[in-house]
């Protein structure tokens, strides 16, 4: 498995929430190399099944890693320019970005605004709200009207860059980095025995409210669920308390959203691999697929692994390749250790001696 190559292919693929077709195809292709079965469901989640060796009925674990990315959408055309809607980017990162407008054909565009030289004094000191920005694809208004219409999707343009120190930067590494980690896990699982069934689900529409996780978990009814997502890495402008070092991840989530026994077992597994894994406390359930998994049907023990990332929700999200690989290996090792005693251990002691 060439981690960087897979990161590149997945980062550069387009898959906005609700329109994950292009990345879905790649994910199906990749998961099919190692899973026993790969299928897609009603909303477009990709479900890769890796059967365990234990006797039927086997317990199952679900890994959820969202494959959708954030982006923009055409809201209206005005003369030869494009108005867009968005809700996930800090408006300030949009100015001057190159984008791809997916109309009848894919057009390169730039997010522009009026030059500061001609603005009234004081106006160039303030950030421009997104609804005052326009995308310019360099066409006439007639050409534009023929090729682009309301509802067409817009993604950030830019290939994956390899930085020094084993870091890579690109768009959509939230959450394609985790999809790669899941692929690494699947590959590792072909090399070891595991008793439990494994569902690796590349979910859709996480960025819109964990929608793919809600419906896929309902259908699969796993006994345990682990989500893989990203968290914040140390960088200027981000408080120390909430951020983690690149290269020392993933983090394991702590808090009401996560089953304490499951979380402890992940910590133990990490220790056994001599991985020093930071614990990430969350006093409120963070907005990840684990949030949805925990309250599916009658409830599911859930956990969260997060890959540290700089510049989250920008076109230059940055992760450490090492963190991606560690996450995949940790998950595979954890799954390998799941046995018949694990599920019964996920109970709560009532302190009633006679029970």
């Amino acid at each position, binding site marked *: 498995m060439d981690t960087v190559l897979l990161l590149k292919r997945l980062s550069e693929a387009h898959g906005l*929430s*609700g*329109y994950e*077709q292009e990345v879905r195809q790649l994910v199906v292709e990749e998961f099919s190399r190692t899973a026993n079965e790969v299928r897609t*469901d*009603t*909303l477009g989640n990709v479900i890769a099944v890796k059967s365990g060796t234990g006797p039927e009925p086997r317990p199952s674990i679900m890994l959820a890693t969202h494959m959708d990315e954030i982006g923009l*959408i*055409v*809201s*209206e055309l*005005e003369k030869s320019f494009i*108005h867009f*809607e968005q*809700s996930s980017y800090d408006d300030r990162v949009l100015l001057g970005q190159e984008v791809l407008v997916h109309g009848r054909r894919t057009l390169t565009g730039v997010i522009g605004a009026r030059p500061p030289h001609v603005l009234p004094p004081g106006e160039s000191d303030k950030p421009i709200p997104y*609804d005052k920005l326009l995308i310019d694809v360099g066409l006439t208004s007639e050409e534009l009207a023929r090729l682009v*219409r*309301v*509802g067409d999707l817009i993604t950030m343009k830019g290939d994956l860059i390899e930085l020094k120190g084993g870091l890579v930067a690109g768009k959509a590494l939230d959450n394609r980095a985790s999809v790669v980690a899941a692929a690494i896990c699947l590959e590792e699982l072909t090399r070891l025995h595991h008793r439990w069934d494994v569902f690796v689900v590349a979910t859709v*529409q996480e960025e*819109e409210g964990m*929608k793919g996780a*809600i*419906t*896929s978990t*309902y*259908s699969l009814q796993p006994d345990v669920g682990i989500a893989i997502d990203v968290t914040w890495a140390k960088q200027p402008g981000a408080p120390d308390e909430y951020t983690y070092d690149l290269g020392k991840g993933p983090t394991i989530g702590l808090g009401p959203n996560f089953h304490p026994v499951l979380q402890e077992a992940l910590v133990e597994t990490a220790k056994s691999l001599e991985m020093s894994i930071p614990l990430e406390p969350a006093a409120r359930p963070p907005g990840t697929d684990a949030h949805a998994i925990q309250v599916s049907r009658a409830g599911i023990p859930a956990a969260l692994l997060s890959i540290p990332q700089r510049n989250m929700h920008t076109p230059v999200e940055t992760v450490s390749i090492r963190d991606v690989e560690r996450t995949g290996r940790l998950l595979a090792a954890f799954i390998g250790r799941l046995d018949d005693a694990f599920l019964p251990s996920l109970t709560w002691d009532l302190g009633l001696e006679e029970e």
Partner: protein
Amino acid sequence: MKDLIRRLTEAYGPSGHEEQIRDIIRAEVQPLADDVRVDVLGNLMALKKGSGGGKKVMLAAHMDEIGLIISYVDEQGFLRFQPIGGVDATTLAGGRVQFADGSTGVIAAENRQEFKKDPELTRLFIDVGATSRDEAKARLGQAVGFVRPFADLGQRIVAKALDDRISCAILIEVLRRLEDSLHEVYFVFSVQEEVGLRGAQTCAYGLDPDLGIAVDITVAADTPEAKKLAMKLGAGPCIKIMDSGMLAHPGVKDAMIRVAEANGIPYQLEVLDRGSTDAAAIQLVRGGVPAGCVSVACRYYHTPSEMVDMGDVENSVKLLLAILKTSIEL
């Protein structure tokens, strides 16, 4: 159809209190449907069986309107309230409200200057003409809807609660004209949409449909200083691509576009930056449901004088009928 719309929009039915509007709609659909029932939360479901081999389709239009609930009766008999759904305080002062028993109240501001500076619901109260707490205390916990008579402007109509009674009218008309469909179609008149899509969620869970289509209003952006959006009055039903609660299933959205084009029905594409519809709730039940929405462009939503275009209404009916005549391949 305008008479039906008038009766529907003038009826009383804030979220959680849909009995009266449900009775009116039930009387309309009972003679047209194969089966009519009401579920736990009060959703009204009218089934029209198909010729077979099709899908189980859930169409949803919500019966409830935004309103207010009386939360306190003060010493002098003035009523304080909390909102039911998204109520904007600036649309209320000077308006009238109606109770379930038909009586009327007036909404007034405590102090006009203070209210202008800080237009909050807590600076408003309702006056029912009572002179003491004793006289009005039975009102505690009662819900009110807004009051405006329906107005026929010709091509356009104005009423309160076009959100979403216009869609109820559309669904009733579709049911009236529906024939030769393969599909088993549930016409759902849902409750409590304005307070969080609650009725649609439990109803869809029970029906477990193969496809869900909500019919609701969307924002017409063709008025002075409106934020730039594509939707306008008179350009046809809007095929929803996205709102702040949902991305329409691409297969459903594409099927709607194909049908509109094949049948020469004008349509608009809708990307909305706010709000949500029953489709967002239907989409997430059980293992997921492909869902979309046909929207009627509407000016001045969530005010007592909403406006839609009758051409859009008629074309919405046509579009839904045309969709139900196909096999709806996604």
